């Protein structure tokens, strides 16, 4: 039981932070299918930085890990500018732009990883080895049965994510900027009439989405795969999108959806282990989150209310 909670949380929280980014972007009126590519590119930047400075720190120093997080944050933000440029300035189709960014990120990072490995580190490899980040256990609280598992074997990034998630919640619901952002997604003309520049608000929202996606990506790279390779593109970004649709574009319900994904996944793995099934059955477990996503979308898509201006190009002259 404890393993299910521990592993479930470490999967759900990176997903959650990516979904929050998605919520920011979509609440401002920009469809974001690019989360997958953004998290991959962010993770690439973070991993590249971590690998290149790893030599100057002791083997178990946590500094490269935190710096990697910062760079993943920045890398994701940088790459999201393409989405912003295409969707806001160039008025391109937002769905197409998202898919283009995903494909571009996948191709680019795969090529660069191999090229950089070959020409700088002198190794023919298609991944950056990162290792798994250290874990920490909160002393007293972790002794509480069941609930204690939440505080056991935590990845440090989980704490960072919780902090940022709280901040993001506060900004979106309790500040003037958050109000503007949400208004941009529902009625951009009203926002414009109030003298606020819609394009600017949306630009910030897209950048926030990129940054948070990058952060989520590096967390996956440091926990599940322990390296950066094309394996990072396993559809986490799309799971995040499904989670936010399921969560009705609100932060707290989205957290619930992410937790559900995380626990379904870890429970499935536990089940394979407990029942002693052969390893090929892992494939069946791997599909659980995806099947769950589809089912949830089937049950909840209709009732949900997407932001009203979502996916529409903002045209000042339109009525």
């Amino acid at each position, binding site marked *: 039981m404890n393993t299910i909670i521990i592993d479930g949380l470490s999967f759900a929280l990176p997903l959650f932070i990516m979904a929050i980014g998605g919520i920011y972007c979509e609440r401002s009126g920009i469809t974001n299918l690019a989360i997958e590519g953004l998290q991959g590119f962010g993770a690439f930047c973070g991993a590249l930085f971590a690998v290149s400075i790893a030599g100057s720190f002791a083997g178990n120093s946590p500094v490269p890990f935190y710096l990697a997080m910062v760079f993943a944050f920045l890398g994701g933000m940088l790459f999201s500018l393409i989405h912003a440029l*295409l969707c806001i300035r160039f008025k391109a189709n937002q769905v197409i732009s998202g898919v*283009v960014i995903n494909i571009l990120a996948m*191709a680019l990072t795969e090529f660069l990883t191999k090229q950089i490995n070959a020409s700088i580190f002198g190794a023919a490899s298609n991944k950056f080895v990162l290792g798994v980040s250290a874990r920490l256990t909160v002393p007293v609280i972790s002794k509480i049965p069941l609930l204690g598992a939440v505080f056991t074997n935590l990845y440090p990034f989980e704490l960072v994510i919780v902090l940022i998630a709280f901040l993001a919640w506060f900004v979106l619901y309790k500040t003037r900027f958050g109000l503007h952002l949400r208004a941009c997604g529902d009625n951009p003309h009203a926002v414009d009439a109030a003298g606020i520049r819609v394009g600017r608000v949306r630009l910030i929202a897209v950048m926030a989405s990129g940054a948070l996606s990058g952060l989520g990506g590096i967390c996956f790279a440091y926990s599940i795969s322990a390296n950066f390779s094309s394996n990072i593109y396993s559809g986490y970004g799309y799971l995040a999108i499904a989670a936010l649709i399921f969560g009705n574009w609100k932060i707290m319900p989205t957290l619930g959806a992410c937790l559900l994904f995380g626990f379904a996944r870890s429970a499935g793995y536990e089940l394979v282990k407990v029942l002693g099934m052969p390893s090929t059955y892992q*494939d069946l477990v791997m599909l659980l989150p*995806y*099947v769950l996503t*589809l089912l949830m979308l089937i049950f909840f*898509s209709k009732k949900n209310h997407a932001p009203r201006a979502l996916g529409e190009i903002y045209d000042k002259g339109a009525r």
Partner: protein
Amino acid sequence: MKKKNGLIQKIILSTIGHEKRQTYMIPVFSILISLIVGAVVIAFLGKNPFLAYYNLLQGSGLAPKASYAGYKGIITDFASFLNALTPMLFAALSVIIALKAGLFNIGVSGQMLAAGFTATILIGYSVLPAAVAKPLVVVIGFVMGALVGALVGYFKHKFNINEVVSTIMLNYIIQYIVSFFINTFYVDPVSRQSKTVGAAGRLTLTDVVIGSYKMDIPLGILLAAAGIVVTAFLLKKTTLGFEIKAVGSSVRAAEYAGIRVGRTRVLAMMLSGGFAGLAGVTYYVGYFASIQPRVLAGTGYDAIAVALLGNSSPVGIVFSSFLITVISKGSTYMSSASGVQPEIASAITGVVLLFSACGAFVKYKVDRWKEER
């Protein structure tokens, strides 16, 4: 600002300013820019970009290599190139039919796998004679792909699920299910792939000796040519084609005109899935003869680039799929001859996509400039 841009504006206007030429000049521009970007990267890596691009042609059998092994020649490479081109054409048709209906099918890879796997286990491993097996493979491929496509269309119509999300979920689901079955029942212990299918069902004739050369002849290329004609006819001359395009341009207007939007969408996705299924069988039971578990073919994603680049017209994709296949097929030879990583091929394709996505903006901007003059 305006003065400075005067000359560039003039050049751009004189090349892509003309309304009629825009349809192909904008894609040509995207390709040129992407190739230049690629060349700069290759030059930056210390390799000769012209040589590298020439290697791409050599690898695709469009230019002679320095030396060939026995029974091999430029024609062998070209036959192999056609083998790779066939699934690409089908996949691109799949993408454009969905695009015309305003749907974005990025599940082509998954639909390909579902169709390829079903055809493999039902026919590929059977002992049916070739005359029966080959048509059956084609039919099964189409039906299986169409079923998956129809499911996506139904989800969109009935539950309002964004087709991008549902197709991607299906991609993963299909990928893991197929991988489970292959690893449990059909695995070849040496290659770690599915066991190879029999020659009878395979849509590619292997090792055919013509003159002094041995080559693999793809039968599917004829089918793909027919598919292009049928699609062009369907979209231009039939009611269904008109309805699909109407739904794609404006759902509300289509509804107002009495078109049943849901039905049209499901039909369009079915056709789209069907073509993806054909891409799947020509890929897994033709070009290749086995399936690698847990891997999706890149063809499905490249097909999006092909479709956008070809202005989502059935004729346009002939050119664009030719180009994208040259890049992806030739990259293996390029990496062995020039030492450039083969992954640069998909990176170039990605850049092509990026510029194609800007197409609408370029058109808008050029039109504005024309009005100003």
